[in-house]
């Protein structure tokens, strides 16, 4: 019981925040890239995809966490996939009911959430070992990180490729849209660009840290 209490208390801000930044599924761990590249050609699509994935992630890892002592080890991957596929089917029908327009734009990528390795990875690496509360907080963080990454890509691609943001025209009639950005190559370029930016920031931080250490050594 004492151990259980301790486990329960160990939900910290970091359980949530690690998914958002330090262990961001897209930018750091490079998981679930297919939907990120494919549906990030506008902010609306990106947001819808992010929310749908977050829901599936939250529900499936919650259920996996609850059932973790009942699922035999040998068939765990198959069981996780069936659980995930169930929730994806639910999301698929819900989006179809709410907005057929959005459903047609996202196409097969809603059903392809099943094959998103980020969700299976969470189930295997986290939900199958942790208590429900911690799993939910962590999944929420990962989902938020995924949505954040999708929005990063979606806003840049819509802005450059269409001159709009959330469908609102920003640059006026004289703007020549950079069409390649909403086409497939643009997805690769924009994600590559964001990764370059993050690498540059990380490197600069490391260099600054080194310089201050050097200065301290010289001072002493």
């Amino acid at each position, binding site marked *: 019981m004492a151990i259980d209490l301790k486990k329960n208390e160990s939900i910290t801000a970091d359980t949530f925040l690690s998914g958002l930044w330090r262990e961001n599924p897209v930018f750091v761990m*490079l*998981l679930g*890239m*297919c*939907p990120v*590249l*494919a549906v990030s050609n506008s902010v609306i699509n990106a947001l819808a995809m992010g929310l749908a994935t977050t829901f599936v992630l939250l529900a499936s890892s919650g259920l996996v966490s609850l059932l973790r002592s009942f699922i035999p080890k040998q068939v765990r*991957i*198959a069981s996780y*996939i*069936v659980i995930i*596929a*169930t929730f*994806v*089917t639910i999301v*698929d*029908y819900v989006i179809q009911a709410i907005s057929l327009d959005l459903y047609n734009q996202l196409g*097969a990528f809603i*059903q*392809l959430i*099943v*094959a*998103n*390795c980020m969700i*299976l990875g969470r189930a295997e690496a986290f939900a199958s070992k942790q208590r429900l509360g911690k799993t939910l907080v962590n999944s929420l963080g990962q989902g938020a990180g995924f949505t954040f990454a999708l929005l990063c890509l979606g806003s840049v691609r819509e802005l450059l490729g269409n001159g709009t943001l959330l469908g609102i025209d920003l640059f006026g009639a004289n703007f020549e849209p950079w069409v*390649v950005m909403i*086409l*497939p*190559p*643009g*997805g*690769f*370029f924009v*994600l*590559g660009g964001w*990764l*370059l930016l993050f*690498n*540059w920031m990380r*490197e600069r931080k490391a260099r600054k840290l080194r310089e201050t250490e050097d200065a301290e050594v010289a001072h002493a």
Partner: protein
Amino acid sequence: MPDSLSFIFLNAFIINNFVLALFLGICPFLGVSGKLQTAWSMGLATALVMLISSVSAYVINSLLVEFGLEFLRLICYIAVIASAVQLVEMAMKKFSPTLFRALGIFLPLITTNCAILGLALFQTFNEYNFLQSVVYSLGAGAGFMLAIVLMAGLREKLELAEVPSISQGAAMSLMLAGILSLSFMGFAGLGG
């Protein structure tokens, strides 16, 4: 014309290449394209699983439609794919241990390759008949192989080049993929 077998093959092979135009199977495309040899093996295994799961998905789908159980499609497909991967793995272990050892860990990973599930879903959406499904899966497999081998060749060359330290790794691979994808857009005109 759009339903002719040769067009279906070309469409899946280069015009709407699964990796570079439809963004399916990006994870193995970026993860396993470091060396030319492993890229060939991965491409081959994926193409094989694609063929098997496409045929089984066709059969399963006609059964589900027969009984009016379309809502179970996704669950059935993913189960079929997982078993197809297992089957290929066992068959390979029995008949060609060398190839089995060469592929190693990549084989089970094919289950979460969205290109395979995507193939099964697209052939259902497009309402292809049996022969068309088979040709479509052959084209998609060849397209995946082409993309991953091209990428591996580029990355092997790139290892000898000097790139700025911030662009090493994934960032550079994505830029490369973008340029490849840009050149594949040239084939779009073939679709007419």
